[in-house]
C-alpha cells in the first residue's frame, strides 16, 4: 500500500487534475451529444470514474485516507444507481421498443 501511494506521487498532482478534468469533460460531452440511453449512462459512469481517480490522487498526495474511503462510497452508490437505472431503461424499452432518448418528448404541451 505504501508503495502504491508513493508511485501515485511520482506524477505531479497537476497532471492528475488535468487528466481527470479531461475525462470528466469527455463524459459531459457524451451525455450531451449521444442519443442512446445506455451510452449516456456509460458517459455518466465515466464522469464518476474521473472523480474517483482525482480523489485517489488527492488522497495520496495529502497522506489522508478519507479521500480513498470516499471513493468506496462513490463506487457503492454508483452500483446501486446502475441497478435502478438499468431497470428503468429496461422498463422503458418494454413499452416503446427503443432506448433512444429522443422519445423523451411526449410530456411537452
Amino acid at each position, binding site marked *: 500500500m505504501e508503495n502504491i501511494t508513493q508511485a501515485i506521487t511520482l506524477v505531479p*498532482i497537476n497532471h492528475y487534475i488535468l487528466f481527470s478534468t479531461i475525462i470528466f469533460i469527455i463524459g459531459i460531452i457524451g451525455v450531451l451529444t449521444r442519443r442512446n440511453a445506455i451510452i449516456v449512462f456509460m458517459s*455518466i459512469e465515466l464522469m464518476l470514474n474521473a472523480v474517483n481517480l482525482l480523489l485517489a490522487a488527492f488522497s495520496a498526495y495529502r497522506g489522508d485516507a478519507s479521500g480513498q474511503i*470516499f471513493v468506496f462510497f462513490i463506487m457503492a452508490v454508483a452500483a446501486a444507481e446502475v441497478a435502478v437505472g438499468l431497470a428503468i431503461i429496461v422498463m422503458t424499452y418494454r413499452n416503446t421498443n427503443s432506448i433512444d*432518448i429522443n422519445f423523451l418528448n*411526449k410530456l411537452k404541451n
Partner: protein
Amino acid sequence: MTSIIIITITAIVVLYLGLYKAQKALLPVSILGLLASGATAFMAWGSELSYFNDMIVFNNYAIAFTILLVVTTILIFLLSRDYFEHISSNVAEYYAILLFALAGGVVMVSFQNLSMLFIGIEILSVSMYIMAGIKRRNIASNEAALKYFLLGAFSTGFLLFGIALVYGATGSFNIDQIAAHASENPLLFNVGLTLMLIAMAFKVGVAPLHFWTPDVYQGTPTLVTTFMSTVVKTAGFAAFLRLFTVAFGASSHVWMVTVSVMVVLTLFIGNVTAAFQSNQKRLLAYSSISHAGYMLIAILALGGASANSILIYSIAYSIASVAAFGVMILVKQQRGSDDITAFNGLAKNNPALALIMTIAMCSLAGIPLTAGFFGKFFIFGTAISAHYTWLVAIAVLMAAVGIYYYFKVIIAMYLRKGEEGNIIQVSTHYQFVLAFCALVTILLGVLPGLITNLL
C-alpha cells in the same frame, strides 16, 4: 440520529409486512414509525449531538427540518390510502421506498461531512427515480423516471467533481474544516464550489437548471409528485443552506453574482411560464420552481435569519402544497383530468374542498392571513436587511404574477359552471389531512409567532 434509525427500521418492517401479505397493517405501522421518529427528534430539541466522528451533527437546525420532513411524510402517507392499490398489488415496496427516501432527506439536513451530503442526496434521489416510474405501463411515467434518472445522475457527477476539487483544495470533507482552509488553494476551491453550486441548484430545480422539473412532475404519479415538491425540495434547500452557510459562507464573493442571476431567472421563468399553463399539475410544477427562487433569496442574503426564514417558508409551502395536491388527486379521480377546467364549478358541488383549495392557493400566492404570507415576509425581510432591495422589488413583482395564476384556479372553482351533481366523495383520511393543512395554514397566518423564533 435515532430518527434515522427508526425510519430505516420501519421501512424494513414494512417490507416484511408486504412479504407476509399484511396489506392492512402497512399504513398504521408506517405512521407509527414516523410518529416515533418525529417524537425522538423532538425530545432531542436544544441539544447538539454529533455522531460517527462528526459525520452527522444533530442541532436545532437539523431537528426542526427533520420534524417538518416527518410531518409532511405522515400527511402524504395518509393521502396514499387506496392510491397505490390502483397502481399495483405490491404496495409495501412503495411505502418502504418513500420511507428510505425520507431517511435520505434526514441525512441531508443533518450532514456535517460531505460524504454524508452525498449519501443523503443519493438515498433520496435513487428512491425517487424508482417512485417516478411506478406506473410501469404508463409511458409518461416511464419518461419521467428515465429523464429524472439520467439528469439526476448527471448532476451527481458535478456534485462529486466539486467535492473532489474542494477536498483537494482543503484536505477535508468536514464542512467546518473546509471553511477553515478555504483560502489555501483558491483556484481549485472556487471551481469546486461552483460545480457544487450547479449540482445543488439542479437538485432543487433552480433556473437555468430547472428544465427537468415540469416534465418529471407531470409524468410522475400525483402523490409522488407531492412528495417530490415538498419533502425532496425542503431537504434539498436545508442541505443547500447548511452547506453554503457553514462551508462556503466566508467565500460568498465567489458565488454571490451567480446566485443572484439564478434567483432573478428562477423567479421570472417560474412565474411567467406558470401563468401560461392550462394543466394544474404543470402549473404547480412551475410554481414550485418559482418557490425555489424565493427560497434561494434567503441563501443569497446569507445571515443569522436565513435558516429561520427558509424553515418558515418550507413549512408554509409544504403544508399548502399537500393540500393543493390532495384536492387535485380527488378531482382527478372523480373527473379524470388534472386540467384547470376540471375544477370548474367545484365550489357548488363541494364547497369544503373548494374552500381548502382556495386557502392553499392563497398561501402559495402569499396572501395575508395565511402562512405563505409570513413565509414571503420573512424571506424579503432577510433580503432587505442584507441590502438586496432591488431583488425584493423584482420578487414582489413576480409574486403579483403568481397571484394571477393561482387565482385562475379559484376563479374556475367559484365562477365557472361545471357539471351539476358531480359531487366528490371524500374519505376520512383525506378529510383529516385537508382540514389539518387548512387549519395550520390559517393558524400560522394569524399567529406566526409560533414558529418565528425557532432557530
